[in-house]
Each structure stands twice: as structure tokens, then as C-alpha cells.
């Protein structure tokens, strides 16, 4: 058991896991993810496609072995940190002392004339310990950046928390998309909330490019009637009832009216791509296929738009009867479709907004993990633990030495240079 633990918690094993993770990432970035099985079979050779599907490489980052890999990596990280914790604690409590330093015998000796205190101070050792050793020799000892020994440990802890936060988030997060035009209220499926789009504005720059999309929204708890309002724009999501609301995308919507004998019998707002059934005539449906805000026919005779400004609106529609297409065409602003006794018109074109609503209850955990990783890295790389030691020789001069595992030859150079 102990032997297995030693292997599983070892750095070699960690390197092997990182290697597999690397391979998974390579596969996941090169092979298109999340497509139909038929795609892989037709795009790759039959064998390669079959292998991709069998190994789950069509959705690497969510397949069972990838999840298992993440779990084993977490175990490895946890084990590694548990194994190293006692010795780190011991080192940080008792590891830095003149006695230990002398016993370690690592120091390379440098001779200095004059007082070593100044030298040590100039190298950043401010709290020096003076004393007399068991052998009756006078010494001066200093240590700096002791916290640095915790760097890698903190980094591993942080990684563990990041993976945990991300994994839990993947399991528990919920996401909904709601779209509509100002004035519309839609239910947010399965949450017990309703979302009203109060307003939606597209700010254009003088050159016709978009500066910002901003939606004003209100979320209402249908059980209690309590409601909260906010504004969401790109890069500035609103948080309502603990849910993040993102201004995700936009498109065109229009009001479609059905008239019969000079009387409007039906009116609905459709977003481009949607259709509606004519209630008065079973089987008749009209689809709002596309919108051209500034209609212009292209050179190839296909419908298109000259700009994104709303100055010459036109609508591409399709008409169905019992699922058979009756006709399709482009309709100008003042034009109408006539079928039997019905007249259908498109009017009041406006932008609709698509609001993405998300709740990931574990983002904060991943964020804390990330902060710990950064702290750990800073400790590991920039708080380089170092020790200095001076001992009075019989002739009254001092013999000086210093050691820093992370500082390496650079630290020795620094001591030598300061001495010069």
C-alpha cells in the first residue's frame, strides 16, 4: 500500500499525468470537438474516425477518461502536498538555525576582511543572530525569505482548488438564453424567474461600427413577485438574483400582422429565423427568414444590405401550407403578401437582444485557487530563501559563507560582489 502511495504521489507520476494531459489538449485542439459521429467517419478515414469516436476524442474535455485523469491529478497533487507538508513545516520551524547551517556543511567559504555585518545587511539580511557556538567560536547568522519554501506547496494547493472549482462548476452550472425585443417578457425555463427586456440600445459610431450594445432588463421571481432591474452590456454583465446576465448577441425582429377583410386578426413579434402559424387558417405558416436594414440587390441578383443603418428595410419571408413551401420573396416596407383572404405585412423592424443567463456557483472557488497559484509562484520564484553565516577565526578575522538553493551561483556572485 505504502509502495503504491509512493508511486502515485511521486513527481514522476505527476510528469506522466501532465504528459497525458498535454496529449489530450493536443487532440482536443486539432480534432474539431462535439460534432456528429458521421462527421468523423466521413472527414477522416474509417479507421481513424472509428478510433476518434472509441477514444472519446470527439469530446475529449468531457469524456470519462479525461475526467478520471483530472481526478487522478487531483489525488496526486493532494498526496504530494500531504507528503511534503510535515517536512516543510519542520523546516520552516526549525530548519533555519546557525547550528543546522553549520552541520549541513554546504557552505562555500569566502574570506572577508572587516565586519561581515555590513556585507550581510547590504545583501538584504536585516535580522542577524549573534552568538557563540558549542566550539566556543563567535558567529553571526542570517536568513531571509523563509516563506519562499512554501511557494511550490502553495502553487500545488492553488492548482488543486482551481481544478476542483472548475470541475464542480462544470457539474453545477446552469445556462439559459432568452431573446426578445423591448417590452417582451419571457420565462427563464426551470428557474422560476421571468425576464423582461425593458429597453435595448445599439450605440453606433460615426463610421457605422458598433460602440456598444446595452439592454435594460428586469428579472422577476414568479413565486414571491419580487423583481430586480439592471443594465447589461458587452463586457459588463448584470447580476440579478445571483445570476449573471450577459448581453450576448443581437439580430433583427419585426412585427408581423395578419389582416382579413380590413381587420387585423393576429399580430406577433418575430425574430429573424422564427415563424408563426396563422391561427385563422390551419396549416398556414409564415417564416421571417432574414432582414435587410438597407436593402440593395447584390451584383449576383441576391438580396443584400448596403449598410447596417435602418433606412430601407426589407424582409425575406417564406410561406408554408401544411409544411409545403408556398412561396418566398423579399418584401419592401410598404408591401404585403396576399394568400386567399389573408393579407400579411411586416412592419416595425427593430433589434432584438439575446441575453445569456448563467449561474456557476463555483467560480469563486476557481478564482481563489488562481490567486493562491499566483501567490505560490511569486513565493517560489522571487522569495529565494538564503542563509549567511560568519565565524570568527582565531586570528580575529571572519570567514564568511552563504547558501541559497534557488539563488545558485547568482547568490554567491552577489555575496562576492558586495564584499568587493
Amino acid at each position, binding site marked *: 500500500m505504502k509502495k503504491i502511495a509512493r508511486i502515485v504521489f511521486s513527481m514522476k507520476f505527476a510528469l506522466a499525468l501532465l504528459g497525458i494531459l498535454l496529449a489530450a489538449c493536443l487532440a482536443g485542439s486539432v480534432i474539431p470537438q462535439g460534432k456528429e459521429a458521421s462527421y468523423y467517419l466521413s472527414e477522416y478515414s474509417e479507421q481513424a474516425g472509428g478510433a476518434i469516436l472509441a477514444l472519446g476524442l470527439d469530446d475529449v474535455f468531457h469524456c470519462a477518461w479525461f475526467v478520471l485523469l483530472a481526478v487522478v491529478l487531483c489525488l496526486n497533487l493532494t498526496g504530494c502536498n500531504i507528503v511534503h507538508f510535515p517536512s516543510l513545516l519542520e523546516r520552516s520551524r526549525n530548519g533555519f538555525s546557525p547550528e543546522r547551517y553549520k552541520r549541513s556543511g554546504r557552505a562555500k567559504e569566502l574570506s572577508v576582511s572587516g565586519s561581515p555585518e555590513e556585507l550581510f545587511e547590504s545583501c538584504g539580511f536585516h535580522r542577524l543572530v549573534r552568538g557563540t557556538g558549542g566550539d566556543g567560536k563567535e558567529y553571526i547568522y542570517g536568513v531571509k525569505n523563509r516563506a519562499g519554501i512554501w511557494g511550490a506547496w502553495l502553487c500545488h494547493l492553488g492548482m488543486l482548488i482551481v481544478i476542483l472549482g472548475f470541475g464542480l462548476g462544470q457539474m453545477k452550472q446552469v445556462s439559459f438564453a432568452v431573446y426578445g425585443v423591448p417590452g417582451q417578457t419571457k420565462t427563464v425555463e426551470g428557474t422560476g424567474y421571468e425576464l423582461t427586456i425593458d429597453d435595448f440600445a445599439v450605440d453606433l459610431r460615426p463610421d457605422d461600427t458598433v460602440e456598444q450594445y446595452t439592454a435594460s432588463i428586469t428579472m422577476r421571481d414568479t413565486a414571491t413577485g419580487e423583481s430586480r432591474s439592471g443594465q447589461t452590456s458587452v463586457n459588463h*454583465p448584470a447580476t440579478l438574483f445571483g445570476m449573471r446576465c450577459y448581453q450576448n448577441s443581437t439580430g433583427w425582429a419585426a412585427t408581423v400582422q395578419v389582416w382579413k377583410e380590413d381587420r387585423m386578426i393576429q399580430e406577433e413579434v418575430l425574430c429573424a429565423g422564427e415563424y408563426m402559424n396563422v391561427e385563422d387558417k390551419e396549416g398556414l405558416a409564415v417564416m421571417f427568414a432574414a432582414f435587410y436594414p438597407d436593402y440593395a440587390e447584390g451584383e449576383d441578383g441576391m438580396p443584400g444590405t448596403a449598410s447596417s443603418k435602418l433606412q430601407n428595410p426589407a424582409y425575406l419571408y417564406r410561406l408554408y401550407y401544411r409544411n409545403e413551401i408556398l412561396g418566398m420573396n423579399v418584401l419592401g416596407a410598404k408591401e404585403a403578401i396576399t394568400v386567399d383572404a389573408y393579407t400579411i405585412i411586416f412592419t416595425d423592424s427593430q433589434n432584438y437582444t439575446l441575453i445569456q443567463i448563467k449561474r456557476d456557483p463555483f467560480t469563486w472557488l476557481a478564482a481563489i485557487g488562481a490567486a493562491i497559484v499566483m501567490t505560490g509562484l511569486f513565493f517560489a520564484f522571487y522569495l529565494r530563501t538564503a542563509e549567511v553565516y560568519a565565524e570568527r577565526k582565531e586570528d580575529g578575522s571572519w570567514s564568511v559563507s552563504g547558501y541559497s538553493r534557488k539563488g545558485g551561483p547568482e547568490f554567491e556572485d552577489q555575496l562576492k560582489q558586495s564584499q568587493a
Partner: protein
Amino acid sequence: MSSEQFLNLENVLFTVAMIGYLAAMVLYWLFFVLKKNMVGKGADCFAAAAFLLHTGALVIRGIGAGRLPLSNQYEFATSFAWGICACYLFFLWKYKFRALGAFVTPVIFLVIGYAAMQSREVRELMPALRSHWLAIHVSSAIISYGAFGVSFAVSLMFLIRQGKEDSPFWQEHIPDGKRLDLISYRAVSLGFLFLTFVMISGAIWAERAWGSYWSWDPKETWSLITWIIYAIYLHLRISRGWKGKSAALFAVIGFICVIFTYIGVNTFLPGIHSYA
């Protein structure tokens, strides 16, 4: 000044800086061949002067565009070259290690050459790209990539050095293997710290803009691949017996991944970063 005048001034500074880097590269190589200190010093001067002009070009572009010049392929490429040069000059100052220039300047020249081939048009940004987090994300990427560029050059030297330890020129101008390993490690640590921050700030931006802080988009995945390779480098250095050659090899592979993450992903793989 009109935006056209800004662009013209930037063009002049950029072109002169590019020629400066080319001259520095040639002089560093001559320094290597002729082994004359004067030539090396001249190379340093050219590199520093080119860097100053390059900085000027970036500042002018920033003023002209009214934002940090970090938003399209050209701007990022020129900033990337700038970052490598900044890191190189820092390491030159810190470690007095001039011969490194012979290996770093070609990388700078290649990256700035790539920038020169991109469109320099100043365009307004789409709303998703107007974010402070994005600016922080890209600025840290420049430092990170710059540091990795330096570690790449040092590791190449480490690999080439083997067998030449006895040559007087190498002894005088190129640190011993232990020191090269340490310098490469310092560069990788700086790069790794910043790369971690690049990924974190990118995640924060993605969360605010798209609603998901990590979505395995190819660019994200490739930055993770790069990150893992450098993590392996860090662990290899610690485990006894692997220090030196193998670690150096990983630093070289790591930088190839950096380049691929930056150029290859946009070219070969689709994703939300593709417009960058």
C-alpha cells in the same frame, strides 16, 4: 496631428527600428565570428537604439489610436517583438551576457518581420474587445512571451555550448553551463508567472464578455499546452539528473509552442480568438 500623420510617423519609426534590429543582429553575429569586443558593444548600441525607436513607434500608434496598441495581429506582433527586446535588454543589463544577442535578435527580427507583413490600419474595436482585462491580458502576454523568447535563446546556447567549453571565446563571453541553466530558469520563471497571469486575466475577460471563463477554445487550449510544457520544464529541473540538457530542450519546445499559440492557432484552428 491627423491620424494619417500619426500613422506616417509610426511607419518611419517602425521601419528604422526594424533596420536597427537587423544591424544589431548582423553585428552580434560578427561579434561571434570576429570575437571583437568593440563589435559586440556596437551591437548593443544598435539593439538599444532600435528598441527606443520601436518604443516610440508604439507610443505614437497608441496616441493616434487613443488606446493601447494591443488589439490586432499587427499590433500584437510588433508589441511581442518589443517585449522580447525589453526582456533581452533587461537580461543583458543584469547578467552582462552579450553573446545572447546573437540568438535573441534573429527571433526579434523574425517577429517584427511578421508584424511588417500585417495590415497597419487602425480600426475601431468591436465591443467585446473593449475591456481593461483584455488590455491587461495582452500586456502580460507580451512580457511572458518576451521572457520565453530569452529563455529559448539561452537554452539554444546551452545546447550548442556542449563540446565547446574549452574555447577561450566561449569561456570569456558565455557563462558556464550552470549559469546558463540558471539564466534560462530565471527567464522561464518570469515567463511562467506572467503566462499564468495571462490565463487568469484572459479567463476574467472571457467570463465578462462571453459568460464562460474557460471553454477549451483552441487558443485557450494551446496556452494551456504551453503552460504545461513549462511546468514540466520546472519539474524536470528540480528532479535530479534531468537538469540542464533535457530541461533546455523543453524550454526550446516551449517557445515553439508559444509561437504556434500566437500565430499558428489563428491560422490553422478556428475559435473565438480568431479575430485577434
